[in-house]
């Protein structure tokens, strides 16, 4: 009896609230659609069909492709959240990671793939974490709030790439770089054929491996213990003899490294080049992924899949149901709003639970 109670309350904590948020999200959006004379059933059917949920393997491949960087940026933001930081800078870190990876991917010729590809991927990881080192340092040393500093770093990264791509690796157009060497590409014939010619690539394995590593790091290691203690309560971490400032910087750097990896999967696996003038939207989507996934690695697997469905199906929704594809962001925002009110939702659920258990 006691243990079943505990399992139920754990389910409510980790599972039920995000699920309810998603249901509420779709519900509210249906209402918005009805108000603006759209057909929600048709729209959502088209959305899921477009994402390949009804058996179209090619479309499902595009969903997996969209999911790949989202897992990593989601992990990036979630790891920061778990250690008390709000990293809005995943977009910039992802861009810098991708830029460095592409630079390595273009510059080295005649390297075997077994060396070139890992080198490019690792350089993305390093670049992302170095880019995040700056806001980490500013936070630890000068108490500059990371929300503002990471946003500034985003703009700086965008303009830096804008400046350096034409200077160093100018491609066919003014606005893009050369394509990377084949030996630095994450695409493989095996996966491309499996998903009927889509760009699903080795990045998906990097993402899934990262989920496991982050989960292990946070839950099983002394290092993760320190990072979490610092995130929850800096003063008691200091009291316990931990190096608080170092931990803040390291949290930020690991978070940035994950975003950098997202850049590697995106630019080495999908675009194969850098296009200047904007920040990758996956960086910001990472915030949504983390929040909907309750900052838990397993939750992120689910929420990044959900977001990928929404994104890869939106064109179909636009085409068939005539619902503008921006609409999917409204769904996401509403889900986050509901997920954010989890405190009150839990309270209500607990009351509900009490009523059931009394009977």
């Amino acid at each position, binding site marked *: 009896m006691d243990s079943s109670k505990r399992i139920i309350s754990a389910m409510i904590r980790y599972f039920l609230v995000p699920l309810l948020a998603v249901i509420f999200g779709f519900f509210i959006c249906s209402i918005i659609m009805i108000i603006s004379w759209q057909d929600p059933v048709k729209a959502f059917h088209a959305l899921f069909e477009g994402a390949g949920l009804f058996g179209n393997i090619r479309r499902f491949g595009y969903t997996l492709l969209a999911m790949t960087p989202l897992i990593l940026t989601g992990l990036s933001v979630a790891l920061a959240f778990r250690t008390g930081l709000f990293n809005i800078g995943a977009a910039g870190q992802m861009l810098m990671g991708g830029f460095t990876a592409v630079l390595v991917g273009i510059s080295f010729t005649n390297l075997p793939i077994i060396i070139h590809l890992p080198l490019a991927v690792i350089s993305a990881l390093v670049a992302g974490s170095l880019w995040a080192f700056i806001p980490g340092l500013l936070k630890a040393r000068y108490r500059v709030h990371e929300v503002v500093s990471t946003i500034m*770093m985003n*703009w700086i990264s965008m303009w830096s790439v804008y400046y350096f791509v034409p200077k160093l690796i100018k491609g066919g157009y003014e606005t893009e770089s050369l394509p990377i060497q084949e030996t630095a590409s994450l695409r493989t014939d095996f996966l491309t054929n499996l998903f009927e010619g889509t760009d699903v690539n080795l990045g998906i394995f990097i993402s899934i491996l990262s989920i496991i590593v982050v989960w292990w790091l946070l839950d099983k290691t002394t290092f993760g213990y320190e990072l979490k203690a610092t995130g929850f309560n800096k003063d008691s971490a200091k009291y316990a003899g931990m190096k608080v400032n170092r931990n803040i910087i390291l949290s930020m750097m690991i978070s940035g490294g994950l975003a950098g990896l997202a850049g590697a999967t995106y630019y080495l696996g999908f675009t194969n080049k850098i296009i200047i003038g904007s920040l990758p939207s996956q960086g910001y989507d990472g915030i949504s992924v983390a929040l909907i996934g309750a900052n838990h690695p397993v939750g992120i697997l689910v929420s990044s899949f959900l977001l990928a469905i929404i994104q890869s199906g939106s064109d179909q929704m636009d085409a068939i149901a005539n619902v503008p594809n921006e609409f999917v962001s409204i769904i996401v925002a509403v889900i986050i709003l509901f997920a954010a009110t989890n*405190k*009150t939702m839990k309270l209500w659920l607990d009351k509900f639970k009490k009523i059931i258990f009394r009977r």
Partner: protein
Amino acid sequence: MLEALNNIVPLAICFTTPLLIIALGGLVSERSGVVNIGLEGILGFGAFTSAYVLNVVLNDFSFISLCIALVSGAIAGGFFSLIHAFASITMKANQVISGTALNILSPALAIYLSRIFAGSANIGIKQGFLKTNVPLLSKIPFLGVLFRDAYITSLLVLIIVIITWFILYRRPLGLRLRSCGENPHAADSAGINVNRMRYLGVFVSGTFAGLGGAIIITTYAGEFSINIYNGLGFLALAALIFGKWKPFGVLVAALFFGITKTSAEISTMNNLLKEMPQIIFTTFPYVATLIALVVFSKNSVSPKAAGEPFEAGKR
């Protein structure tokens, strides 16, 4: 040198004006105890509404229409911000997350509505306010440059700053509002309805941010699209920190950002500076912000209770 100043200042004021009113919105909200990271989204919604009203509803760009657009942008911002208020005050959501939700919601909603009701993601603005010299004030020696070749909205915002300061620091309402941001339990025991005060703070902050968006539309934007304000709401947060949560501090901070941003843009037109790497100028405003934050963050004086939901039972 003086000529350069005469060139830069009017342009800087153009940019400073919306930034200032948005940052002031952030100030009112945080003073009441609610962190409003959703300023970016709110201002975008205000900008969309005013553009929509101007182009589609009125389809007229006279002075009166422009004023109506300003007011409707402000009202739209106010009501849009109530989502944040409801989530963070009534539902006790994490204020940073609920603000982030607004930032995601706003551009999507704006483009969605724009495509449904106006037929395109961008809304063109044929004519905004005209630049004028403010009577009397522009004649002041030296400082007069601030009022030369300026939009009427700049004067409006300046007046709002002064009124806001007066209400916050001289009127009972301001004293009560600030007490909710510093120690809501003290306010509660003095019979002040903390949550109602915070709703007010967020609503006013929404109106100010919405007005800021409308000012962009009715002055220099030329059209509504996401690019016309991209990042301004976050820069306003930086100005709030830099300005130490004080109305006139925020004024100075916004002016500082306005000048750095403008001088970066002007430099691309200057023959001498053209030779230097462009990256120096394009990243200058952001690097300057970071440096300013390093200098000013250490002894930060943010309202003590900002960010914490108020629970009467907790002591």
